[in-house]
């Protein structure tokens, strides 16, 4: 067992646990923090696999932006929830009757099945070993981005613009309209 493999396995193991805590943490704030931690670990995995640029981008985007915005979201939604009254949270009755199948059995079964199938497929194929990237990735990615994939690049930029505007439009508070609270 060489360093690379050990590093990978260690990072992976912790990442699994961290991801698990994202799903199961009772307080949502904790879950968000666990999510950030998971992102970080995934960035580490990228490094192990030789994608340094991507690791950097992962940290910047995910750990930096996404986690932050999620934290903001938690803050704002919690506030609305609190202002609405604890009753609305406590009185979280499920309108339907039995949710056993829908919420507990089937998701588990389906997920396990899916993962099982994928793992089975992965392990049954004789993959070649990971050769590792050839050379510095930054210039290679840059070159690819501005030559072969320039159109998707531009489109992605437009997409971001749209998302930005769209988010503002959706969330803007119209003071002329009747709003409950806030």
């Amino acid at each position: 067992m060489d360093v690379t493999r050990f590093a990978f396995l260690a990072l992976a193991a912790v990442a699994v646990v961290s991801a698990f805590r994202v799903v199961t943490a009772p307080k949502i704030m904790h879950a968000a923090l666990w999510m950030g931690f998971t992102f970080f670990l995934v960035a580490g995995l990228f490094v192990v696999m030789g994608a340094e640029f991507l690791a950097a981008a992962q940290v910047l985007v995910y750990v930096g932006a996404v986690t932050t915005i999620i934290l903001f979201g938690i803050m704002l939604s919690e506030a609305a929830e609190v202002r609405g009254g604890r009753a609305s949270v406590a009185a979280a009755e499920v309108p339907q009757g039995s949710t056993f199948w829908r919420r507990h059995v089937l998701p588990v079964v389906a997920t396990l099945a899916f993962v099982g199938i994928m793992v089975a497929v992965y392990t049954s194929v004789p993959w070649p070993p990971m050769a590792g990237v050839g050379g510095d990735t930054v210039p290679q990615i840059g070159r690819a981005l501005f030559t072969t994939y320039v159109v998707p690049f531009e489109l992605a930029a437009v997409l971001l613009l749209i998302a930005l505007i769209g988010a503002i439009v959706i969330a803007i508070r119209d003071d002329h309209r009747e709003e409950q609270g806030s």
Partner: protein
Amino acid sequence: MMLPSGIPLTYPLVFGAILFGMGLYGALTQRNAIRILMCVELMLNAVNVNLVAFAATFWQAAAAGQVFALFVMTVAAAEVALALAIILILARREKHIDIERVHLLRW
């Protein structure tokens, strides 16, 4: 900086599958809308892991894998912004973000 890789491809793939599975489970069962959003992010990360793994194995494919992963990241970020905007609207209207109690699709 280049690290010598000797990792079997199955490792990151299986890890990706597990990560994806956990994210999937959370998306299907959790009631808090933001938690669901976080699980979706997990799934997207798992996809990225897969892509990078394949890129590292088949480098001759001109970094397509990493570029693809880059795009995924971009879109994921945009998507989170929008999703949160919607969740905020929901929080304002219903005073809660328990999606189990939101069944406007079935009036």
